[in-house]
């Protein structure tokens, strides 16, 4: 059985040049989820990780119950644990299944928009089958209104499919960085397989076979599969379009290409050996080149294995073990409340989707611009509106405005991966770091901007804009784009380029 995948019937626009409109979610109208079959859309419409739209409204959490791993990846260091770090594989406290269940229910009762519980490590969830499945089993009984997800490197996946299908789990994420064992050997130094540590190409080959087999088995069971890939320049970057084609043909419904995070202080192989991560441009180009083949996910925050809250925020501190111990949770009452809130959010999302569609229809009727695309950064804390002060933004969402409409490109962290000492590293201020993170953007939209950052942004060629506070992101970005066009700030695309677009 093969699940229908987005972009199965590519529109002519999808073959456009980069910088134009190459994704199915182009235009201010089409949400990537609108083109999904109803059965899948129903499953993902309130899943913040799977739906770009939903991630503005719904929250997720990870519980760190799975410490053991059965492989080594060159971007991972099993020794690392830092409260200031936000990246996969990092956690502060390991939980037993019982503690995880308590924590999940405490969060679900306190943050009713939390819809999804994932197990993502800090090791491999399926290399800890007892702890992982005990957590899932109890949650599907005690908190049936929570969606359960798991992510895995795939090595132990074929043996786990049967058990996964028994619980309330309808989404599995497999990290597949390659389908070529030679490339695999440059990413995975070893695997533990059948009572032996197997190194190099031989180990990578087994891992790849298990991943592909597990993927096929999940699809056959009707479980949705998302594929994560880490983009490692010079290692698998040119190969990931092939990975996208392969996993799509087998029925994965979403591909998430993430940038490598590698710093010497993380103590990882790539970090210490000076392997660089991709630039935002390189990542966007790759995502665009894969998107002709497959629905791409661009809003992933690469969160910690114990993250709590909306994507991009972490409220883990409110739910430490000693704090949840003191909470008295009436989950039946909480479920009632959650249901009402979820319905209200759904209604709001539906009405916004209709509004967006109407706006886009209107946009289509207007004379088409011939101006070049522009990247804009937006400060938001959710609800799909511009509602964060520039200085308070921990991250920015990057949108591209073009004559085709507005599309979401990525998010960028304001202060990169460290939330610690503001002057660590090479002595740049947080403000300087933030401005550097916005490279390539010509406008930043936020609810307010202070005097000092205003001047620095202008000096860096980024126009600060606080005129669209509380407005929907797509509309505001398009309005600013049109103003820029009207003011003659956007050179027309040369005729030759347009012919290829």
């Amino acid at each position, binding site marked *: 059985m093969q699940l229908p995948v987005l972009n199965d019937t590519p529109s002519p626009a999808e073959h456009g040049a980069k910088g134009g409109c190459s994704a199915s979610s182009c235009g201010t109208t089409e949400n990537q989820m609108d083109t999904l079959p109803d059965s899948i859309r129903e499953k993902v419409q309130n899943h913040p990780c799977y739906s770009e739209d939903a991630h503005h409204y719904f929250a997720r959490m990870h519980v760190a119950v799975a*410490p053991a791993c*059965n492989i080594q990846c060159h971007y991972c260091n*099993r020794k690392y644990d830092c409260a200031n770090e936000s990246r996969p594989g990092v956690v502060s406290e390991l939980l037993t299944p019982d503690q995880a269940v308590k924590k999940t229910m405490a969060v679900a009762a306190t943050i009713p928009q939390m819809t999804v519980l994932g197990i993502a490590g800090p*090791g491999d969830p399926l290399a800890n089958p007892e702890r992982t499945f005990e957590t899932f089993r109890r949650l599907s009984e005690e908190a049936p209104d929570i969606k359960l997800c798991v992510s895995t490197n795939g090595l132990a996946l074929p043996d786990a499919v049967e058990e996964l299908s028994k619980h309330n789990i309808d989404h599995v994420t497999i990290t597949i960085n390659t389908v070529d064992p030679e490339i695999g050997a440059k990413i995975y*130094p070893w695997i*533990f397989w059948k009572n032996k540590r197997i190194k190099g190409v031989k180990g990578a080959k087994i891992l790849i076979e298990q991943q592909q087999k597990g993927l096929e088995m999940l699809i056959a069971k009707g479980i949705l599969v998302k594929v994560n890939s880490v983009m490692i320049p010079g290692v698998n970057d040119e190969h990931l379009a092939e990975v996208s084609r392969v996993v799509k043909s087998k029925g994965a419904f979403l591909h998430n290409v993430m940038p490598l995070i590698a710093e*010497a202080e993380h*103590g990882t192989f790539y970090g*210490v050996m000076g392997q660089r991560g991709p630039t935002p441009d390189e990542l966007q180009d790759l995502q665009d080149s894969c998107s002709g083949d497959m629905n791409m996910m661009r809003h992933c925050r690469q969160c910690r294995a114990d993250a709590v809250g909306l994507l991009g925020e972490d409220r883990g501190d409110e739910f430490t073990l000693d704090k949840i111990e003191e909470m008295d949770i009436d989950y039946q009452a909480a479920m009632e409340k959650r249901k009402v809130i979820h319905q209200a959010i759904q209604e709001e999302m539906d009405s916004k989707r209709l509004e967006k569609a109407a706006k886009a229809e209107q946009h289509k009727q207007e004379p088409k611009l011939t101006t070049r695309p522009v990247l804009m950064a937006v400060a938001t804390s959710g609800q799909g509106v511009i509602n964060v002060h520039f200085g308070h933004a921990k991250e920015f969402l990057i949108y591209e405005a073009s004559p085709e409409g507005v599309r979401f490109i990525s998010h960028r962290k304001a202060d990169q991966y460290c939330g610690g000492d503001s002057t660590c590293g090479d002595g740049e201020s947080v403000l300087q770091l933030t401005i550097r993170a916005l490279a390539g953007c010509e406008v930043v939209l936020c609810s307010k901007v202070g005097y000092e950052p205003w001047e620095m942004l202008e000096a860096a060629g980024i126009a600060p804009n606080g005129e669209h506070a509380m407005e929907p992101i797509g509309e505001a970005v398009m309005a600013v784009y049109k103003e820029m066009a009207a003011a003659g700030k956007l050179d027309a695309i040369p005729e030759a380029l347009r012919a290829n677009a």
Partner: protein
Amino acid sequence: MAVSIIDLCVNCFACEPVCPSNAISEQKPHFMVDPKKCTECEGDFPVFQCASICPIEGAILDSFGTAINPPGSLTGIPPEKMAEAMAELQSH
């Protein structure tokens, strides 16, 4: 004749279920091998199971006190490269 786990252990649980003799248990501050139970996998496997899944170089020693996974053997990071990176970090 027994292996031992030393304080480099990061408590990842990986070794505990693969031990054929149930010699490994969760202890504070880190997992420990019961030397009375450890058989060094003799009769069960040709290689130490705990040391074959352990991700941390130097965390498990053989009965002579030698690291079964010496520096660089698991991560592929040459020890001098690691030392360089750590020295660089400490100078900040």
